[in-house]
């Protein structure tokens, strides 16, 4: 019996396909089915109704937190990558280059713990301000709420976005930046008007990937801001750990998935536009 080309091709991709099916498609399908299954079995939207009643505020909170984090991450990454590309002070550029990647190698949970000790009411930041005489001890407030989450996300994700952005900027024809300066543009204008528009696809991709990453982090909202409102990941963990309520947790998972899918669509559209252009 001879194997046709088509069968051979299927055989070749079978191990990879099996892995995707076992580790991704099966749990995803299982969660989806669980989310749409009622207490008595059968298709039902009960879990979604319950998720909405209990956690609609957290849904909005999650979206706002992640979008704000993306915005600040993008700004910080632009400043870092812009300085690395257009900076003229060798000492500053060298120091920045050596330092900015460090948070990439620190897990979210460690970053969250660092932020707890840094942003707490009597944490390192406030203590430093008091020691410097910038404020009175009584004026100290805790930042361990939504601001702490945003700060941790930005701190953790900026190096990743800056790395991709700096790579994209370094790959630009340097002459296109020099041409701007030659015609009279300041370095800031060169960055904003000439360099960034050329690397916008890469920046957008880095931010989309960061959006999805931040959406799925449990440790940061749990450790930095334990109180309500909080992010959907914490709610999911709570439903399972406290109530064994997989259906509601899975419904929240579907909502998170839909949010990610929105970002993924932007990512894929970019990818297709790029392929179409080449």
């Amino acid at each position, binding site marked *: 019996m001879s194997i046709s080309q088509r069968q051979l091709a299927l055989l070749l991709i079978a191990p990879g396909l099996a892995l995707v099916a076992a580790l991704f498609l099966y749990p995803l399908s299982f969660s989806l089915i669980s989310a749409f299954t009622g207490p008595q079995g059968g298709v039902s939207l009960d879990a979604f109704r319950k998720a909405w009643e209990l956690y609609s505020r957290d849904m909005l909170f999650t979206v706002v937190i992640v979008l704000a984090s993306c915005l600040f991450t993008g700004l910080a990454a632009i400043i870092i990558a812009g300085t690395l590309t257009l900076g003229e002070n060798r000492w500053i550029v060298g120091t920045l280059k050596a330092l900015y990647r460090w948070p990439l190698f620190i897990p979210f949970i460690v970053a969250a713990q660092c932020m707890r000790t840094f942003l707490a009411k009597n944490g390192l930041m406030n203590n430093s301000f008091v020691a410097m005489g910038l404020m009175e001890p009584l004026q100290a407030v805790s930042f361990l709420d939504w601001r702490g989450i945003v700060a941790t996300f930005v701190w953790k994700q900026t190096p990743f976005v800056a790395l991709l952005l700096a790579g994209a900027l370094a790959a630009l024809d340097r*002459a*296109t930046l*020099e*041409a701007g*300066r*030659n*015609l*009279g543009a*300041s370095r800031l204008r060169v960055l904003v008007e000439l360099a960034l*528009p050329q690397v916008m696809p890469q920046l957008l991709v880095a931010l989309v990937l960061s959006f999805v990453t931040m959406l799925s982090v449990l440790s940061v909202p749990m450790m930095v801001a334990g109180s309500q409102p909080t992010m959907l990941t914490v709610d999911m963990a709570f439903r399972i750990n406290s109530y064994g309520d997989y259906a509601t947790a899975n419904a929240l998972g579907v909502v998170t998935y839909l949010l990610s899918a929105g970002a993924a669509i932007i990512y894929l559209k970019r990818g297709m536009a790029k392929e179409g252009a080449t």
Partner: protein
Amino acid sequence: MRAGSQAMSRAGAAIEVRGLHVAYGGTKVLQDVDLDFAPGTFTALLGSSGCGKTTLLRALSGFVPIESGSIAVGGKDVAGLPPEKRGMAMVFQSYALWPHMTVLQNIGYGLKLRGVSKSDIAARVSSLLEMLGLAGYEDRKVTAMSGGQRQRVALGRALAIDPGILLLDEPLSNLDAKIRMTMRHEIRAIQQRLGVTTIHVTHDREEAMTMADRLVIMNAGHIAQIGTPEEVYDRPNSAFVANFMGAENVLPLHVAPGEGSAAITAGEARGVLAGQAGLELPAGEALAYFRDDVASLDAPDAAAGEDLVVPGRIAARSYPGGLYRYRVEAAGRQITVDHATRHEPGAAVGLRIPLSRLHIFPAAQASTPA
């Protein structure tokens, strides 16, 4: 390209470079360069790769920091100013157009930076495009244009700000041969019409000769010779310049000065160069440089007259078109000669070289690698 658009440039500015030193890390790239550019002139910086010509251009434009020296534009030292404050417009080798902008936005960018109104920018860009033969291309994306068209847009972008100084960094090297020839004439015509002081970096000898009023030949960070194309081509001041300008055949000689003339010996061949030219020759061992088209082939025992007839043997022959190209072994060297008549390889010939066409330098100086 049409010539009927409005005159749009102020007179070109003068540049004075004094004692310029530039280094990358510990490597000295330019050493003690003194150079003047008169207003409205077209100067070509010519040299082989790594000679420092592009570094000189980038130092002028402010993209390379200088170690010491001064760069004065119109009497004002600009060496400490950033690129955007020097009033020089540059056309880059890669054109460096902004792919996310249209032709109008690219050319008008410098004007936008200067606060010119949108309608004035549109009018100015339109007149520039007409001059560049690209009328009606305002809304075209630069990525949808050919190499020659992009080159014109890059030139238009530089000219739009009405610069006193135009810097051209090998702008023609990415174009195919035919368009390159056309662009040479077009750039030269525009430069002459606008009167902008232009500095053109190139490694293409013919391009430099046909476009520039004046050539600056550079070698290893120094200026080897400055002069009009005729001066540099016909009267090179060193073996390097002679060799760089195409006199690639080298013949060892012995020069013996006499009464009002010099006796020249090359192996068995002898000749006498009378008059001032003979008196100026260096005495002793020397090397003569000459071009392929200067020498011709004759009988080995032909009368020398005012030439040098060096006996030799044809080692190889090729036919590049129009003339035969021979490689002749003579006086222990391989000499390339173009000649109309066909000879067979191995034949004994006399290599006839007019003495007045030789560029003769002392052997010690000439042995410097070219």
